[in-house]
């Protein structure tokens, strides 16, 4: 019993080291923020400014979606 408890606590400690945290459905608005994008992130506006001026065109780089937690 004691060994099991120690192992459980150690496993919990290891999991806490990953820094992972589950996002609740009502918190998923945060995932829709620009800074939460997987690629480019906060550099995105600068990147698009340069890209648009070089290509003389803009748009077509986004995707719909809002981090909804619905089924």
């Amino acid at each position, binding site marked *: 019993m004691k060994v099991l408890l120690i192992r459980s606590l150690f496993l919990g400690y290891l999991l806490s080291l990953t820094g992972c945290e589950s996002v*609740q459905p009502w918190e998923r*608005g945060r995932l829709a923020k620009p800074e939460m994008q997987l690629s480019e992130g906060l550099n995105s506006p600068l990147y698009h400014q340069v890209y648009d001026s070089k290509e003389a065109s803009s748009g077509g780089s986004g995707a719909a979606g809002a981090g909804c937690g619905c089924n």
Partner: protein
Amino acid sequence: MRKTTALIMLLASALGHAAAEGDAAPLFTLPSLDDSEVYSLAPGKIIYLDFWASWCAPCRASFPEVIALQNSMGSDRFEVIAVTVDENRAAAIKFLRHYDVPYQILSDPEGVVAGQYALPGMPTSFVIDQKGSISLRHSGFKPGDMSSIRLHIQELLEAPL
């Protein structure tokens, strides 16, 4: 072995569970979205409690139908209470400009009440009966969903107290 089972059950209960049908609806007090008044949930009327957010696409689809529900059911024995979980109140207010909402909009930016109800997704709505019990939980929203919710509320309204 019994101790292990008890430990697992304790851990499981600590994680919490979604408010389910048959459970007593957690009572709460929240400010309105414009911060002009405070609302406390209390048993008495049949309540359609709707959790929504401006960033949630199905919420946009559900809004006209929830408004129609309140308008058609009247407000004597039935009430819609909508709770926005938007952290940014301005976003919720901007969202509401598209609708003529005839019911209370409350604000839960910290997600405290959403946590009490342990929402499984967005949007999630609950039908709470006159005694304060959850009689229906509905997660997500797609066209046609409202007909079964409406039928359920109608049955509650017609049931003898």
